[in-house]
């Protein structure tokens, strides 16, 4: 494919970069609003209608702030990691079908599910590097907590992601999404529930928001960051949250596919995608609000003693169910 207008539009505007960033900020607003209402607070109200522009205002404000690099940080890595983690999360997003197809149409290959999950892990590693390069005790502890937590939930997350792939008989994420006449969340709810739990850990949300537990280690890996680097680090975290929710939508909720009532399918698919994603974010915020933060040792124990065996079990159960379900044509 040549570098034509449509490709540039897809990558840069919709459903590519601009859409992803703006949608991330919208989701951030939704999260803050939900959390605030659950906690008997107002949440953002001032900037824009019902405060919807608040995340954008926060981002722009941080961009204008002074950029301080502490003298004894490992300079190169410290400066680079915010951009690297941000871009790797956005890059991963480009592979997910948002309006029926993904932004880079030609890069829709067999096995991209593994590729996407790997990219997510690598992007997490950049977060670790950002803390590790800060040479601040709080950052160092935050960074090691990112890795310790990653060891716990990454394997269960991979295992659980293969259950939908098995049902769809495909490792292509678009194919998995499009093969769900009935959402896999209803077909294999146990995997769905476990995946949401593992995802909470991946996204560092309560009860797993250990790497940046502010009452223990200040800002965790973000502690030494200021100004535009902090802005990008925070945006990267927000993109990660949306990305995590998007993977749930693709794997368990039928992706962007849904009824097309009239007009362009692109519009309807994007709408379904957005609505499903918001639903996932509501679930995730609900969990955040009703739990206290666990301790890192408790999380490691929980991951290896419960989450891992349970995900293996759920994979076995899925295979058993799949062998029985798939022959019934039309079900899947």
């Amino acid at each position, binding site marked *: 494919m040549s570098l034509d207008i449509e490709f540039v539009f897809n990558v840069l505007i919709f459903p590519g970069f601009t859409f992803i960033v703006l949608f991330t900020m919208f989701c951030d607003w939704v999260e803050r609003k939900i959390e605030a209402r659950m*906690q008997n607070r107002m949440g953002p109200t001032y900037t824009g209608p019902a405060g919807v522009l608040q995340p954008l205002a926060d981002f722009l404000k941080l961009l204008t702030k002074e950029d301080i690099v502490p003298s004894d940080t490992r300079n190169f890595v410290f400066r680079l990691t915010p951009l690297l983690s941000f871009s790797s999360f956005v890059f991963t997003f480009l592979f997910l079908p948002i309006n029926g197809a993904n932004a880079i149409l030609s890069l829709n290959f067999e096995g991209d599910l593994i590729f996407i999950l790997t990219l997510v892990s690598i992007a997490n590693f950049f977060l670790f590097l950002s803390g590790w390069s800060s040479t601040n005790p709080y950052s160092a502890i935050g960074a090691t907590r990112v890795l310790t937590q990653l060891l716990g939930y990454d394997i269960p997350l991979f295992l659980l992601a293969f259950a939908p792939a098995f049902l769809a008989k495909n490792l292509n994420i678009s194919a998995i999404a499009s093969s769900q006449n009935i959402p896999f969340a209803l077909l294999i709810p146990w995997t769905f529930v476990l995946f949401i739990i593992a995802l909470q850990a991946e996204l560092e949300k*309560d009860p797993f928001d250990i790497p940046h537990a502010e009452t223990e280690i200040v800002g965790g890996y973000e502690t030494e960051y200021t100004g535009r680097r902090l802005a990008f680090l925070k945006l990267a975290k927000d993109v990660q949250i949306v990305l995590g929710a998007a993977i749930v939508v693709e794997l368990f909720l039928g992706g962007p596919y849904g009824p097309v009532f009239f007009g362009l399918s692109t519009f309807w698919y994007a709408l379904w995608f957005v609505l499903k994603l918001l639903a996932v974010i509501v679930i995730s915020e609900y969990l955040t609000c009703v739990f206290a933060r666990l301790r890192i040792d408790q999380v490691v124990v929980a991951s290896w003693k419960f989450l891992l065996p349970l995900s293996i079990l759920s994979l076995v159960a899925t295979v058993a169910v799949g062998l029985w379900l798939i022959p019934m044509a039309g079900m899947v």
Partner: protein
Amino acid sequence: MTNIENEITALLSNRLGEKILQTRTLQPDKICVSVDAKSHKDALNALLETDENAGLSALTGVDLGKTIELMYHIRTHGIIVTISTEVPKEDAKIKSITDLILGANFHEREVADLFGVTFEGHPNLKRLILAEDWPKNLFPLRKDAEIVNPNIAENGNVSSSDEQRSDDGELVNIIVGPQHPALIEPEKFSLKVDGEIVKEIEPRIGYVHRGVEKAAEKRTYLQDLYLVERICGICNACHATCFCQAVEAILGVNVPPRAKYLRTLILELNRMHSHMLLLGHAGFEVGYETLFQYMWRDRETVMDIVEQLTGNRVIASFVTIGGVRRDLPEETIPKIKAQMTALKGKMGFYKHLFENDPTFRMRTKNVGVLSKQDALKLCVVGPVARGSGVNMDVRKDEPYAAYGETPFNIVTYSEGDSWARLMVRLDEISESIDIINYVLDNVPTGPYRIRVPRIVPAGEAINRVEAPRGELFYYVKSNGTAYPERVKVRTPTFANILSFVRIAEGGNIADVPASFVSLDPCFSCTDR
């Protein structure tokens, strides 16, 4: 004098014989036994044997001109017995009692800082309250101290930042405070951590020490009332009540019964909003922000009642020498009762939550365990002691205000962990609601205040009040003028802070905030 006090006096004169120089009475009816500077430990030993739960309540220093008087206020059988001794000012040295009473550690360091008394045999007699660069031979609470413009440069620029940055070997040194999100107020805790495990803790307080005790000597008794109220915003009524009761004891006046009931009312409202603040804060520390927001919303109810009653939300300025400042209007009683009923229902919900929420229990159960023995050794007070199964409460031991007539229970838990300390407070809120309901039903009619003279006759008094954080101790000495000679304040957090080292060492770094907050530390109190 009660039977116990008679017994103790008899026992002391039996054991010490001629070593007793003098026996005097501190108002109201408290024994004070003077011994010479060599036999104070014998006297303390004799006292400690009378009660296994005995402990040091406070250590007061008083400048007598040529000598410095040290008063060891020992809590035994729920009452205070004072052992007094004098050391010469020029050569102020005395044997440390930390080997007898572990909890005397911080008390002695405070007196060493403020009076320049050297405690021989103290394990760690470093600066606790004064800044590192404070002049070496300037002791603020001595009467002859010139502290208008202290020559700080004389001591050089001593900075503690060098020791902070050094990590020794395997251990990483993490400084919690003076500025840290977990501490609202500035104090410093140096933690040596090995991975996620805390190996060693070194607390340092005094960052916002305001010299209230010194300032109180320069003001009249009525002005001091406003001063001591500002020692702690949260338990301001407790400070005011404790000071007023001490001054009233020296004056020998009796407060009208209605004032006693109204004092009980404001003290319990104080306790409720302090405990609710703490429980919400505990939620925040373990990452449970929803609990934090809910608790603080309900706390507003109490604040509104305080405002209705006193005109102010926080610093009430309600209690005054001779009674209270404002009367309780009849028409507000049903309003307060309705709000109490609503709060009582909510406390049931919170109790269910505290007992059943899995993540909250995982973070607080078996975290920061303080055994009963340690609690007694470290002389902790209030909910911290009651959470470790020590049954002590000044409201029962030496009833003041209307507590003698009010039925209520002392809440104790035996677990000694963070969860138990929080549960003590949660249950105490319910008890407070009952007390407030009783007070509102039974408040007698009559005057709510009497006039008292401004000049206070010479005398000494000690007084204790059960503040939300535990036993609050005041010693007031009058020299027959309108200005006090000495006001000593021992706040509950000062007595409790040492136990933090005990409960957090060997624990997880993630448990430091959770166990720390369960002590309900108030540094504004600690740094008087």
